[in-house]
């Protein structure tokens, strides 16, 4: 049971990172990123492929973060030069294109077989309780990113992002180069998602393309909206509550007689949908509403 809880907490931490990254993009700046999972995937795959090829982990991880940030920079630069709603479509498309790329370009990505044997960092240092160490690593990353992003939010940079979210035209008249700010915000969010991907791949030691489906992006959005867009603590809380709910409902199948595994999966989706509807009616600002710094 402890092992199960540690595993869940690790996955919650990784989701919390994704929600924190999306919060920079949507919560602070108002950018719609429907391809969160793609930057997650770029991080996981870059780190995983380099690590199994024998590259030292710090170098592989740095490369993975740079790769996700670059993907973010490229996408944002192209899409933001068009109209604002294009970013949503471009990112959504990027998510699916990436998954198909991972599936079909087997020479590079090993296709549907996925990457096996991704090394687990510092495995030999912790012969016992390795999972606890890994949970500590993930939570340490969450804490570090939280502190950094909270500082960003309170800075003049964060203030400019919120101004852009509220009214782009006013931000322009105020002398802000809104394209520059948007691209930077998008890149920061993409890099954080990349970090989450790194932690995900090295935790499971195995990744394959179908782990990176659009539904993952949806869950990150749900977590952020549930917790409170614009609020970094809200992003973390949202991830905890949402995954707690999804994982907790797993046990419902032991209690409720007619609920089989398949029915449960469907019921979970309904539960999540219902949750979102109720939330939007009763508390659209989320559990922890945004507060002025």
């Amino acid at each position: 049971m402890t092992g199960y809880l540690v595993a869940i907490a690790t996955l919650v931490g990784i989701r919390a990172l994704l929600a924190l990254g999306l919060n920079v993009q949507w919560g602070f700046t108002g950018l719609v990123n429907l391809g969160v999972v793609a930057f997650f995937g770029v991080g996981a795959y870059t780190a995983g492929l380099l690590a199994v090829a024998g590259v030292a982990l710090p170098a592989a991880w740095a490369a993975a973060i740079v790769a996700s940030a670059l993907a973010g920079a490229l996408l944002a630069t192209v899409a933001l030069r068009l109209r604002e709603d294009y970013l949503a479509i471009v990112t959504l498309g990027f998510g699916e294109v990436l998954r198909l790329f991972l599936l079909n370009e087997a020479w590079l990505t090993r296709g549907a077989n996925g990457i096996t044997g991704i090394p687990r960092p510092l495995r030999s240092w912790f012969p016992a309780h390795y999972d606890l160490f890994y949970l500590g690593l993930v939570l340490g990353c969450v804490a570090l990113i939280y502190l950094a992003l909270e500082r960003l939010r309170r800075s003049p940079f964060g203030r400019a992002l919120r101004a852009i979210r509220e009214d782009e035209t006013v931000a322009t008249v105020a002398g802000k180069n809104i394209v520059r700010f948007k691209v930077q915000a998008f890149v920061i969010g993409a890099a954080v998602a990349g970090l989450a991907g790194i932690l995900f791949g090295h935790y499971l030691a195995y990744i394959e393309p179908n782990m990176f489906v659009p539904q993952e992006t949806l869950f990150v959005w749900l977590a952020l909206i549930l917790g409170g867009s614009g609020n970094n603590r809200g992003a973390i809380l949202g991830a905890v509550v949402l995954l707690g709910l999804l994982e907790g409902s797993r046990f419902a199948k032991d209690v409720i007689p007619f609920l089989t595994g398949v029915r449960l999966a469907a019921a979970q989706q309904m539960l999540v949908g219902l949750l979102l509807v109720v939330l939007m009616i009763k508390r659209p600002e989320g559990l922890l509403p945004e507060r002025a710094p």
Partner: protein
Amino acid sequence: MAEPLLAVRDVVKRFGGVEALAGCSLDVAAGSITGLIGPNGAGKTTLFNVVSGLTAPEAGRIALGGARIDGRPGHAIARLGLARTFQIPRPLARMTVLENLLVYAPDQAGERLRGLVSRPKTIARQEASIRARANEILRFMELAPLASDPAGTLSGGQKKLLELARALMGDPRIILLDEPGAGVNPTLMRSLVARIRELHARGVTFLLIEHDMDLVTELCDPVIVLAEGRRLVEGPFAEVRRDPRVLEAYLGVPA
């Protein structure tokens, strides 16, 4: 005659088949409060949008203090010392009144990511001086008690004051005011007029769109009448109001 602070030459702006500005030329002299009047659809707000860089003109030249600004992005024009307000106030609703002003401060080192990491002291010092300045402006505009309220909760008139307050943060050479008096109650209006006069005395130039002719009479000299995307007449308001071409433009029939 001295070089105008703002010079607009033969500017054309089309929306589909409509020529909102049809070769518009006008000058705003440094140190003036120039009024811009004209019937609805004359192109007044379009002129503001083109001058402030929110939309690019199809043809023509615009110069601010001798430097061409037409076709440059809005944020760059703002940094050259041109500020503007909006006819319908556009507060940054979920940010506080104070933050609304802080955003308008130019050249903030803390808005650059590299600076955030490498120059925390400079940023802290700058932030303190920006806040001091914002608070000073809020007192000047009589908005100080509302500093920490979300800007979206202000009354219509207060939002108008906030528009002007924000514009002051960048120490502009010229402020384009789009109907500052519309929807403002008489008390607030007197305060607004007093503020504009005071700023004018300190050397700020104004170009002001207004439909309230009392306000125009009181503040503006000269007055430019815009009609069908062109400058129709220019002069002191007392003369302009008697000009038959102006009456025709407003009433649509030869006077």
